[in-house]
């Protein structure tokens, strides 16, 4: 039986995330652990479901194993549906040959079948590497009300950072006048959040046109949006004012993790009828020992803390043994910090073991100290020393 879906989401999750270095050697960026018990993609998936978008195509390419396994049937997000739900869309072999996804636009182009299958009127294009909470239904309403062909979500950024983003200039009615990818001299502070709603017919037309152009880099920001603007299509900006962070770099990933701490966190993981849904282990409650100190930190199920934890975010089943100190750190799942080890200002990927009396990183308040990064499964030997800002992987 066929049932139409008004809007389907296409979630771009194939990027390598090369600026996360060791953290994305074995997994795609959207599958990187965030906030202790989540993975980055949980935020977009939770947004979709809680905005009433129940048909999501997840476009994967780079190191998809962990991501595929994590998404599974979509059960944790209630996306295990009889019709619709979540579908993983990897590159495939077609009648006329096979191709990797050459760019964001090409990834969607190769999966137009998926969109047509649901006869969707609107296509919501998302990135799987942003941390934010947003009601896409409101954006879709705005898109429909304005009669736009394309609506782009924008957020105000400080002018000094604007040259890192795709910058959008609008008129007073939010109609987009100009779009510049990473401008040297930005004339606006409205940055594209990489969230687009297209009316399906227009999207198909432009994607097909773009596919014919061998010189194109098949990218939304570089090709599709400029082409639509040049052709005079009706394009609107949708201003968003909540928390939003691109966690594409080590520093921004660390900062976003720290944003969940405190009495009034910048990033609330639940509240007002919204929460981040995720798949996780069935671990017992965390245990805090007799001599433990835990301050200004986020700790989750399965953790066992016998040492000191300050200003840190801990993943599932992390063990901090007696006399160990963890400060200003992000520890992903199953890390073990043994007796007397000190870990400061660092990100530890999953399954890292820091042996007794080892030292990783250095104080955050010492000028010039960067974030030390230890890749998944690495073991730092007893008494060893890892310099501040160092990057270690298997």
């Amino acid at each position, binding site marked *: 039986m066929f049932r139409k879906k008004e809007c389907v989401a296409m979630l771009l999750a194939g990027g390598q995330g090369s600026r996360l270095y060791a953290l994305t050697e074995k997994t795609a960026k959207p599958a990187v652990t965030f906030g202790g018990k989540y993975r980055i993609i949980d935020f977009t998936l939770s947004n979709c479901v809680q905005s009433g978008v129940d048909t999501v195509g997840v476009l994967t390419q780079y190191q998809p194993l962990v991501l595929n396994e994590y998404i599974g049937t979509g*059960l944790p997000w209630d996306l295990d549906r009889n019709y619709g739900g979540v579908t993983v869309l990897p590159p495939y072999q077609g009648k006329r040959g096979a191709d990797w996804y050459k760019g964001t636009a090409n990834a969607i182009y190769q999966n137009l079948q998926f969109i047509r299958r649901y006869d969707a009127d609107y296509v919501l294009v998302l990135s799987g590497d942003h941390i934010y909470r947003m009601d896409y239904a409101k954006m879709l309403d705005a898109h429909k009300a304005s009669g736009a062909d394309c609506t782009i979500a924008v957020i105000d950024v400080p002018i000094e950072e604007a040259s890192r983003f795709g910058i959008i200039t609008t008129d007073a009615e939010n109609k987009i006048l100009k779009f510049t990818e990473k401008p040297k001299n930005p004339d606006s502070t409205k940055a594209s959040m990489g969230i687009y709603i297209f009316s399906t017919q227009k999207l198909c037309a432009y994607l097909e046109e773009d596919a014919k152009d061998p010189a194109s880099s098949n990218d939304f920001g570089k090709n599709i949006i400029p082409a639509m603007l040049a052709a005079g299509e009706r394009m609107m900006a949708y201003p968003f004012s909540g928390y939003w962070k691109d966690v594409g770099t080590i520093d921004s990933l660390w900062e976003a993790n720290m944003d*969940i701490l405190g009495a009034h966190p910048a990033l609330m993981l*639940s509240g007002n009828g919204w929460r981040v849904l995720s798949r996780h282990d*069935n671990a*017992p409650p965390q245990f805090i020992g007799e001599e433990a*100190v*835990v301050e*200004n930190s986020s700790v989750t*199920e399965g953790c066992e803390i016998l040492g000191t934890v300050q200003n840190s975010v801990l993943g599932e089943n992390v063990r901090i043994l007696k006399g160990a100190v963890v400060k200003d750190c992000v520890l992903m799942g199953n890390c073990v910090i043994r007796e007397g080890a000190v870990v400061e200002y660092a990100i530890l990927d999953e399954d890292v073991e820091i042996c007794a009396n080892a030292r990783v990183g250095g104080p955050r308040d010492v000028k010039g100290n960067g974030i030390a990064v230890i890749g998944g499964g690495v073991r730092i030997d007893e008494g060893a020393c890892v310099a501040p800002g160092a990057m270690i992987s298997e």
Partner: protein
Amino acid sequence: MTAAGLIFSNIHDAAIPELTARRTMASIPFAGRYRLIDFALSNMVNSGITKIGVITHYNYQSLLDHIGNGKDWDLARRTGGIKLLPPFITAYDNAVARRVYQTRLEALMGVMDFINRCDEDVLVLSDCDVICNVDLNAVLEQHERSKADVTLITASVDTAEQDIDANAHVLRADAEGRLTDLAEYAGEQGKVEICSDIMLVRRTYLQHVVGEAVSRGYTSFYKDVLLRNLARDRIFLYHYTGFFARVNSLASYFRCSMRLLDPPARKELFYHRNQPIYTKVRNSAPTRYLEGASVKNSLIADGCVIEGTVENSILFRGVRIGKGTVVRNSILMQDTRTGDNVRLGCVIADKDVTIEEGRELCGHTTMPFYIGKGVRV
């Protein structure tokens, strides 16, 4: 040998009237994020049992809510899976008797349809007032080897560590492990071998004895079925040695819970041979410890926000501890909130309790102070 499970969710409810006033024994919250039925279910699921019937009697809304379709235990299945078996009331019989079942045996009579439809060789029967992590495959192996009709799982309980109540059965066996005597607990001291009320029963044997019991008007499974047939039937014991607790009063609930603060006990229960305990997922955010928080020797679930001091306590999901508040030797269930400068000692707060600023409440380990569900202090 194949096995199906059968769980009694209401048996011994009367032992803890405080916690079962509005729920079943099976849905009593335990250890920060579990309910008692999770242990029975996980034991079965971890041993490869995927068809499980849950016998209910009354007060079972909270149980239905907890189990849902069973997906958190991997029991949402096309074949088998979890089946809730509410009281079987016919228009005629029960209207005359004016009651639903009272005993284990009568409960079994009520679910004969479920049992008759099973084609498994063995049924694993389990109550919910027992907390353990038992490898049922090992029991099943022994059951098969000894050609048993019934294998009762026993545990040795030291009366110095936990109380035994009159609902417990003391068992005696010969050198081969075959049951020779069975009696209600009558106050013996020291190490006592009691029945965990988890047992493996050959399906055809169960069908036969329940039929026999119906025709003779028997009511007690232990006295009328097992005790009468010690010589005729092959009834064996299996001695379980891991973490074992039997909840039989509010004080014992308190004591059993607090045993989990002991690392070896916790390891035995939760990390036994890759046999995790499953429960309903709530998707709470991780727990936030704020500046000034001080937590020692405590078991804390996710979703809590802690600003004060917590010692030797168990906090369930979504508990909030205000600034300057000191919580000692207490169990605070889901979504309990304390204001600032509250003092709690040996308190059991049921779900959704609110304790306002500056309140001081104190019980004793042998007589914990219980605050009912949703109460505002």
